[in-house]
């Protein structure tokens, strides 16, 4: 057996390295940098029922070892993703991809998930519940266990493919939300999404990005993400995809020891488009250094 191989439920990945949603477009943008087939899988740009432009510029601010983004889920909408984006990626990537799904109502999640469910290229449906629930005053679905479970339950009823719930870290009790999703039938948990952050421009005295507050990620958030993966691993039996600040092969191992079965690399793809390739290439060396024979052996080792 390939010593980098890991399992996410019934799906076998040749290695645990997956580019994270929103930092890898619909995949094909990165094909000019390297052969995408080296990747364990890839999580595509968050897709909604209708096309979205997203937020006004500026959408990006830099911070120490991190980035703040206010993209606002720009995407062409599910119909165009199926008609144009998936076919463009198809000749470039042979394994199954992860469809990342956003919505502003339960119906929208169910609609988009059902559409992706019919696509052969898609192996996992990843439900991003960091979006505001428009009908319930705009509070994010992911900030309450009941709302998270409701989305999960309704999507599960409508689809056949495995459903991974992608959790927001902007909550007081991540464990309660993870457990609620597991009880509602989730096949796995992806965590974490971006933390809520802000940067102020000292010259203008105003927040830098147009939405003022925005999603903070990158190496700076890694300890928070490792902690949350660790906590959730203790509480649920379903597999976890660890996300947050991963930039090196050592980071991958740290997340797996905390309890992740696979990982996603986000912001680091933006500063180094070769990040995932380099991490995959470095893994065997780093495994040797820490005397790890098979990556799957170390999942949850820190417990």
């Amino acid at each position, binding site marked *: 057996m390939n010593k980098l191989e890991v399992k996410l439920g019934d799906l076998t990945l040749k290695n645990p390295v997956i580019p994270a949603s*929103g*930092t*890898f*477009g619909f995949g094909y*943008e*990165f094909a*000019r*940098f390297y052969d995408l087939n080296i990747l364990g899988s890839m999580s595509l*740009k968050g897709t909604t029922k209708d096309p979205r*432009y*997203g937020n*006004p*510029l*500026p*959408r*990006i*601010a*830099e*911070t*120490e*070892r*991190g*980035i703040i*983004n206010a*993209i606002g889920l*720009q995407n062409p909408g599910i119909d165009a993703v199926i008609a144009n984006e998936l076919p463009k990626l198809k000749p470039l990537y042979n394994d199954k991809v992860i469809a990342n799904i956003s919505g502003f109502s339960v119906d929208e999640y169910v609609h988009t998930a059902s559409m992706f469910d019919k696509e052969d290229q898609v192996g996992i449906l990843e439900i991003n519940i960091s979006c505001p629930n428009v009908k319930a005053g705009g509070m994010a679905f992911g900030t309450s266990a009941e709302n998270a479970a409701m989305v999960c339950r309704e999507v599960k009823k409508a689809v056949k493919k495995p459903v991974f719930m992608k959790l927001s870290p902007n909550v007081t009790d991540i464990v309660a939300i993870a457990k609620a999703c597991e009880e509602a039938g989730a096949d796995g948990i992806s965590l974490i999404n971006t933390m809520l952050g802000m940067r102020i421009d000292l010259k203008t005295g105003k927040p*830098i990005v147009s939405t003022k507050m925005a999603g903070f990620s*990158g*190496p700076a958030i890694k300890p928070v993400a490792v902690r949350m993966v660790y906590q959730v691993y203790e509480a649920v039996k379903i597999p976890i995809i660890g996300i947050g600040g991963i930039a090196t092969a050592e980071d991958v191992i740290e997340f797996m020891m905390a309890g992740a079965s696979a990982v996603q690399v986000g*912001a680091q*793809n*933006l*500063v*180094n*488009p*070769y990040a995932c390739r380099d991490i995959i290439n470095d893994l065997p060396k780093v495994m040797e250094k820490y005397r790890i024979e098979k990556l799957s052996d170390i999942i949850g080792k820190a417990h």
Partner: protein
Amino acid sequence: MDHIQIYTIKSNVKIAEDTFKMVLSGDTSLITAPGQFVNIQLDGLYLRRPISIHDWDEQSFTIIYKVVGKGTEQMSKMAEGEKLDILMGLGNGYTVMDKQNVAVVGGGVGVPPLYAMAKKLKAEGKHVIAVLGFGYKDQVFCEEEFKAVCDEVYVTTNDGSYGIKGFVTTAMEGKNIEYFYACGPEPMLKALHKTGIPGQLSFEARMGCGFGGCMGCSCKTLTGYKRICVEGPVMLTEEVTFDE
């Protein structure tokens, strides 16, 4: 070959107030058109810094940058022989149009990318007018370089301390300009757009990646949403809108 390469600084000199010119040696095969940019990694800073290509040949390329913050400050202190990690050949760049009487119009640190464009236009036999706009005398740079490759060169300063007093549009009045290629601050691009002369405008945005991965730089145009880093930074006057 990776699109990220390590480049060696051949020279890094001050050419105007807070403005530096840096020559870097290394592979330039990914540069395809004037108006493209590179993305530079700097010590201790997470995001790369986008800077336009001023000129290039087979073994080296030149950038001109203004010190405005931590990254450009760090660059200004680097010496010959030091190395930089650079993501190459980004953006669409300018396209030479079939128009004979043309202007290259630059404002401040928007001037640099127009130099390679002026050379290209001249090589294709066009009549090239350069209009270079600055705030005041101490900011002026590259006038001699443009004089060596253009048919006419006009420098403007807002306060009249050097050249023509006024904006780039002041200097363009009454001249035979069928088409223009421009780069500069947004108010300048807007003023050029208002003249009604057709042309190509190069835009800036805060970028997450510089190569199409993040949607951080996406803007609305009359022909749909465009990423300034991939479908830009150069856009056509007829597709650009300054509303909102």
